[in-house]
């Protein structure tokens, strides 16, 4: 059984306000995280400190309270592993505004329960990203020992343990937002209508229909699917997206991926090599 856990027990010290209730497009980060989890897990919980139990944004949800105060994120993960010892946990931080269904689905598809955990590598430094990861029930004893030995950092725990580490699917998906400046920048990028510079490549039939092999443009499209619909209308492209695959920055991608500034998107008609 897979349960979901949103870590919302932090102090948000650098943000100077509770990160769980920061809003993007009218939804709080906590709501957004729970909505991403809901279709993918059996049940979702919110990890909190004991003194946050009655806090209005958290009180309506299933809560898991830290066993030992002051441990940070690893304390929340430990408490969950003890609350439901038979279950695996899909753990999310509540400050990941760029996280998408595509990144979660990829993590779930690649999960291998023979490892203690399945996690992404950071697109910045290659280290494990513990705050969008799956922790198997077998993590419980090793994490207890890690905490007992005085260690706190879940990233270091993953790096030192038998965790399956995946290359990031989307470069920005796990970028977290810790300061008011980062929040303002994320709001700008996620606001409907914000536009990005993108490069688009066309092949075969689509290249002929578009009358070009590539182009650079500014688009408000958030995903490859939205971008394709925009370009399909503009260039009169004759293929439906269901017939195509999409590539982002020279590898196969997902139609629902959140596009980033500077991405190259290629639309691939049905192939016919050999």
């Amino acid at each position, binding site marked *: 059984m897979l349960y979901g856990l949103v870590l919302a027990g932090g102090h948000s010290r650098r943000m100077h306000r509770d990160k769980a209730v920061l809003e993007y497009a009218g939804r709080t980060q906590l709501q957004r995280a729970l909505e991403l989890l809901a279709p993918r897990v059996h049940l979702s919980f919110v990890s909190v400190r004991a003194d946050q139990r009655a806090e209005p944004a958290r009180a309506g949800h299933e809560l898991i309270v830290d066993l030992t105060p002051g441990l940070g994120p690893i304390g929340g993960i430990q408490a969950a592993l003890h609350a439901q010892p038979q279950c695996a946990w899909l753990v999310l931080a509540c400050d990941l505004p760029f996280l998408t269904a595509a990144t979660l689905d990829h993590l779930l598809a690649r999960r291998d329960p023979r490892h203690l955990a399945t996690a992404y590598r950071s697109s910045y430094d290659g280290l494990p990203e513990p705050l969008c990861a799956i922790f198997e029930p077998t993590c419980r004893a090793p994490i207890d020992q890690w905490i007992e030995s005085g260690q706190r950092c879940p990233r270091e725990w993953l790096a030192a343990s038998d965790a399956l580490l995946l290359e990031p699917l989307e470069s920005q998906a796990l970028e977290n937002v810790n300061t008011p400046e980062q929040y303002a920048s994320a709001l700008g990028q996620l606001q409907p209508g914000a536009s990005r510079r993108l490069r688009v490549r066309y092949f*075969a039939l689509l290249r002929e229909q578009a009358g070009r092999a590539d182009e650079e443009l500014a688009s408000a499209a958030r995903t490859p699917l939205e971008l394709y619909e925009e370009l399909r209308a503009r260039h009169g492209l*004759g*293929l439906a997206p269901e*017939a195509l695959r999409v590539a982002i920055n020279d590898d196969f991608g997902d139609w629902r991926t959140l596009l980033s500034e500077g991405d190259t998107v*290629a639309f691939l*008609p049905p*192939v*016919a*090599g*050999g």
Partner: protein
Amino acid sequence: MHEPPLFSLHESALEPQQLRARLQQSACGGFVAFEGWVRDHNEGRRVLRLEYEAFAPLAVREGGRILTEARERFGVQHVHCAHRIGALGIGDIAVWVGVSAAHRGECFEACRYIIDEVKHRVPIWKKEHYESGDSGWVNCEHCAAVAQRAGQAPEQKHEHAHRHEHSHSHA
């Protein structure tokens, strides 16, 4: 020195003798090669010539994945797949797959796996030029026609979730 990529794209004629030499090793007792040739007809139409187009970086990457899978899955020693791009005439070699291993059984299986996967997964497209003077992108024209019909009569939009398992190959 860099190891040559497992999957390669070529703008000029493939040379089987050269390709084969790379797979010849003293530990190998078996070698299987597959050549896909340009045929003079497809689906009842006379074909005069072809063009292949590739999304090169992804073709090399995905082709490399297929060849690595084949090596792991069948335990073969050496694998290579070379694919043409550009203009091809009838009888030209469009694709070459070679596998060498200690024994023949795994060579045959790995070779079959590679060519089947390459056809379905590697971003390479084929345009056929017909005797009648027109031309068409293989596997695309049908989808385009379906999309057009769907656009004209949305209420009759029919299921279009096929996976292109079919292939109109020369092989």
